């Protein structure tokens, strides 16, 4: 279904049309979400205004997992169909994904201070997010440590896939570990039910983060395609004047 977009030119044409739409959706929904979330949504009964961190925290955590799922899916596509743009998409998703994970951890810490009374708690979710950040670090380090992108891509695919299979195991073991060491009476930052006035800004922020992620990945892939064109162009460039010295630039 997507195989026609493995042609870089076709993909580039699509991405060129799609990325301003993505950015527009991001700008609009982020504006709506932030204004409603920060000014017009009600404060929570116990957490007061600190509950507003939710509007930047929850979508970040969601995208942290979503981005890694995207990387694993793209790696699988690249592994099975040798779809070279899928590798580029997976690579472009790594930095935004790690940034969302770091943002989720940071906003979690800022939220934790008034809620739990500590910047960092070895809560099951925080701990598994921290391990997810390490998974992103490992994935990015593999891309960094190989000069030749095509070679790096093959190692990165393997790591992304084996790491993805391992995620449920990590989640399970961290939950178990946490239940042994910590009393279960923590005041959970998310209440049992969320009122509609909070759901609307929360969902706009979810859409905003997703659109931002899409825009970043598209831009990253387009930059990679442009870079490859430039390298190919450079390889061809010097041979022309040597092969046919009489042909000037105007004739070409």
């Amino acid at each position, binding site marked *: 279904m997507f195989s026609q977009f493995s042609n870089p030119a076709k993909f580039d044409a699509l991405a060129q049309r799609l990325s301003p739409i993505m950015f527009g959706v991001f700008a609009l929904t982020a504006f709506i979400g932030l204004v409603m979330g920060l000014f017009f949504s009600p404060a929570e009964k116990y957490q007061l205004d600190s509950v507003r961190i939710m509007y930047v925290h929850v979508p970040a955590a969601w995208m942290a997992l979503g981005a890694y799922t995207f990387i694993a899916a793209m790696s699988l596509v690249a592994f099975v169909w040798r779809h070279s743009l899928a590798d580029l998409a997976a690579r472009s998703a790594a930095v935004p994904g790690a940034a969302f994970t770091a943002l989720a951890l940071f906003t979690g810490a800022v939220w934790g201070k008034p809620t739990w009374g500590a910047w960092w708690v070895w809560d099951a979710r925080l701990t598994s997010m921290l*391990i997810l950040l*390490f*998974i992103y*670090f*490992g994935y990015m*380090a*593999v891309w960094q*440590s*190989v000069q030749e992108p095509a*070679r790096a891509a*093959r*190692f990165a695919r*393997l*790591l992304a*896939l*084996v*790491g993805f*299979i*391992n995620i449920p*195991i*990590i989640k*399970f*073991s*961290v939950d*178990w*570990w946490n239940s*042994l060491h910590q009393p279960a009476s923590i005041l959970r930052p998310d209440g049992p039910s969320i009122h509609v006035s909070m759901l609307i800004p929360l969902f706009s922020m979810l859409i905003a983060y997703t659109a931002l992620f899409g825009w970043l990945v598209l831009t990253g892939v387009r930059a990679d395609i442009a870079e490859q064109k430039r390298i190919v162009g450079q390889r061809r460039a010097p041979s022309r004047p040597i092969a046919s010295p009489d042909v000037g630039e105007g004739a070409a």
Partner: protein
Amino acid sequence: MSAAKPFTQAVLARDIKIAFRSGGGWFYALFFFAVFAALAAIAIGPELSALAAAAPAVLWLAAAFAIQFSAADIFEGDLRDGTLRALSAEQASLFPYWLAKVILLAAVSAAPIALAAPFVLSMLGVGVDVSLNAIILLAIGLPALILVAVLTAALASGLRAGGLLATIIAAPFAAPVLVFGVSATNILFANGVLWSPETLILMALSLFMAALTPGFAIAALQLSLE
């Protein structure tokens, strides 16, 4: 398939000969384990009750790092001198080669660590009888760490970053083993119960890694030859 078994044995025999010859350094993993535990004890302080409380964590961390580091250059020699390329051209699959390396790590690095664990634990103020049972827990849990170490060594073998990168990649895989290894050891030391649910999950982790890692490790080895 019939050729696989002698092939595994041949690679293993060669590697064990290399490890045990003069300068082969088979004892490095064991020394690292002992040095790590001693440094941890020095950092924690001489009070035996504090040391005994930290003993399970020290035991599993020391074992995990010792195995991870001893696997770091496990494919290095064969990649550099072309042995792995020749084997890959000649053999239908690199599975026997992978198996030989796993058994090598188990025999040369993990087994001495498991056997030395009761001595180290006794020095950390844990009773001798439960210390001996810790050998069984290590025998159940260390296979998972060995398989992860071999996988990450294979992934890092084609990259020039080496051991540190392999350790970073291994961390998310090692975390569940540490969780259940340490809690199973805690239960053993506190209640004397060896076959707790944690021990069974630790065994499940070893089996899971045995199912998950061979394909990926062999694929990574083949990539490093390209």
